[in-house]
């Protein structure tokens, strides 16, 4: 299996010619090179890694496409391989890589209101505190999910909270 680095500017052209040759895309994943050797010399930090297969000749290849600019940007290839629609959304969600020309580039795994991109190397496990806001029991602002039938004075954010102190007090 060979590995090749492709510049973002040539990516769409390259993708189209590969598709014409019969290459099928199997995977597209983001990669943050921040902690890898030689990251300082390179002028880009983010790239996507594509796994492709050609079934007729039983051949596989792996392509790295570099993301340039701020925010890191790569042209979208959703018109070439339909598979990229979900995969590019995941790379955007996890790494904040923007895909130019992707219709409906939005978060796919994380909640829409999430800030930050979790798989980035400077977004460490335990390094960023996450505020768990008390969620309302029912999302009343969403059409179709009304508080219909619920007493309006229900303390929604108190649901499910365990208060051991109260419990102890009762026992005493």
């Amino acid at each position, binding site marked *: 299996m060979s590995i090749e680095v492709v510049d973002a500017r040539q990516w769409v052209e390259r993708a189209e010619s590969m598709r014409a040759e019969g290459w099928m895309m199997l995977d597209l994943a983001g990669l943050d090179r921040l902690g890898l050797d030689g990251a300082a010399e390179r002028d880009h930090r983010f790239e996507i890694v594509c796994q492709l297969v050609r079934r007729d000749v039983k051949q*596989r290849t792996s392509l790295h496409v570099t993301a340039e600019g701020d925010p890191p940007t790569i042209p979208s290839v959703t018109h070439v391989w339909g598979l990229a629609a979900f995969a590019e959304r995941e790379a955007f969600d*996890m790494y904040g890589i923007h895909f130019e020309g992707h219709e409906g580039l939005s978060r796919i795994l994380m909640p829409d209101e999430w800030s930050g991109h*979790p798989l980035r190397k400077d977004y460490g496990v335990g390094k960023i505190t996450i505020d768990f806001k008390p969620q309302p029991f029912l999302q009343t602002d969403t059409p179709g999910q009304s508080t219909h039938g619920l007493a309006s004075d229900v303390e929604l954010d108190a649901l499910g909270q365990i208060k051991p102190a109260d419990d102890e007090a009762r026992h005493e």
Partner: protein
Amino acid sequence: MSKTEKRIEEHDIVRRLEDEGHGAYVESYDPEDERMIINMGPVHPATHGVLRLLLELDGETVIECKPIIGYLHTGMEKECEDQNWRSAVTIVTRMDYLSPFFNEHAYSMAVEKLLDIEVPPRGRYIRMLMSELCRITSHLVQFGTQGLDMGAMSVMFYGFRERELIVDFFEMVTGLRMNHGFIVPGGVWEDLPDGWEEAIDGILEVMPGRLREYQDLLSENPIFIERTRGVGLITAEQCDDLGVTGPIARASGIDWDLRRDEPYEAYEDLAFEVPLQHQGDVYARYQVRMAEMGQSLDLVAQIADKMPEGDYKNMDPKLTPPPRSEMNRSMEAVIHHFKLVTQGYPVPPGEAYSPVESPRGELGAYVVSDGGAAPYRCHVRDPSFYNLQSLPVMTRGGLVADLIASIASIDPIMGGVDR
């Protein structure tokens, strides 16, 4: 009318519809062309997990279907980066929870590529044995839930009854029924226990008859055929475009199975056929899976027959903790054990991708190492994630009832989709 005003008006219509008793799932309703946007899931008995669908309906016809995922996202790829190479297996195995051995297998093969090590023949055969049994358990769940969704409830019980038989064998070998963490870089964690041959013989004795029984239950069942023939169509070109693999692609006439076409482990020593269908509908997928179960049983028999003797894992002391007997005698063995447990082993810098043929298609692990004792990046190409993209293609223009059949035939595992 501004967007907000429109939204408020829509909201009012929805409220009115609910008050009139039209159900609480309506997201929006356009009275002019009677189009409705309906929310299905994330908690719904027919979505096989926390899959949410937004459906645009014209009466009973699905105009557009949009899968919304992420409800089971727990950041497993990120968690892997916090583990050492050995213990990341325990996280990877939890992704596609109905086929845990395949996750472990793909990951272990990728790490072995980086380490450039060999797995002893017995280790390879144990891996294949567990994988093929796991394929049967996974297809049995699909078979059972598909039947249930099509109104054949007894099929569900039969599917899970036979699954239990094999899951008991997993428990006997690995100690766990699911999420085994059994296949590790270098081989498998434990040798097969005493009496495994009898247990396999028991499975091989019971299963072929049961498979015939299933065929009698569903394959000729007029209601089942009526609900699955010509439903959820997808062509080979669409499969190629969306990266759909596995039984769905094989039911559309794509003759591609990694076990045969890019053999890994010792699959080239075994004789098996790749079931193929051309109709590309739900029934064809059902037939492919049923035939695959039969093939997997054949493979299990061959593997059990050919099981070689010898080491079941790579015995390199830098990689594998020494056996307990040796640690009682040798100081060096104790040191190796301590180092491996506390620090793990380093893996040379580089990257590797290795795929296996899982019950749902190509399951690949892409790992990157920076030379340290933890994965720098561990990505799993989960077939469910990409296969799910075929759902809008299959359901557009069909009926809502057919949508249920299509979801069941895609067999998405949300643990793998969301990772």
